[in-house]
């Protein structure tokens, strides 16, 4: 089983601070997806990264795919209380419509 390890597991910071969370594996990904999940809801896709070294921005969120495509990071600038949630990374095998394998998750709390 190819595990996706996310760190930190929990993170609690003040509103306005910056933060970075990580998703790591020993194996190469063909693509990696980041999801956000709020309590009582399903995961919502934020972004998909495909190319090694790729950087994608979604407002205050910056996603980076490692050059070797084994790891990824999510950086949030000037965190807001609305950023609170469970952040999940997920991978798929490089075939169409394969299952998602999720990481262990980072539970982020932004304190107003």
């Amino acid at each position, binding site marked *: 089983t190819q595990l996706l390890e996310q760190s930190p597991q929990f993170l609690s910071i003040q509103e306005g601070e910056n933060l970075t969370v990580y998703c790591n594996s020993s194996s190469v990904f*063909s*693509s990696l*997806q980041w999801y956000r999940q709020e309590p*009582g*809801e*399903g*995961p*919502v*896709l934020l972004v*998909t990264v*495909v190319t090694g070294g790729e950087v994608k921005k979604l407002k205050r969120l910056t996603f980076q795919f490692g050059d070797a495509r084994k790891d990824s990071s999510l950086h949030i600038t000037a965190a807001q209380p609305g950023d609170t949630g469970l952040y*999940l990374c*997920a991978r*798929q095998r*490089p075939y*169409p*419509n*394969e*299952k*998602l*394998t*999720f*990481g*262990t*998750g980072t539970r982020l709390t932004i304190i107003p």
Partner: protein
Amino acid sequence: EPEVTQTPSHQVTQMGQEVILRCVPISNHLYFYWYRQILGQKVEFLVSFYNNEISEKSEIFDDQFSVERPDGSNFTLKIRSTKLEDSAMYFCASSDSGTLLYNEQFFGPGTRLTVL
């Protein structure tokens, strides 16, 4: 905006009873999935479904589980004889054909199953 819907939002059942969890995927999607999330644990794949048959299933998806697409809109997960350890959030997801490398799966809000 189209979305995946699931009913019921919460199901409480006695151990040994049968439950059916229902999902309405996004209308033009062709690929359907069930995942589950035990409280405090990560989201786990159960089964994928395409063209009226199972594409892949995990080791969790044993003979007690079955899926069905009884009509053009619903996608159901049945657990024949529930066990305490089946208590979890169950998420339905659907997708279109995607690209060669990945597809974007859209998740429903989940059904919380509690087995007593």
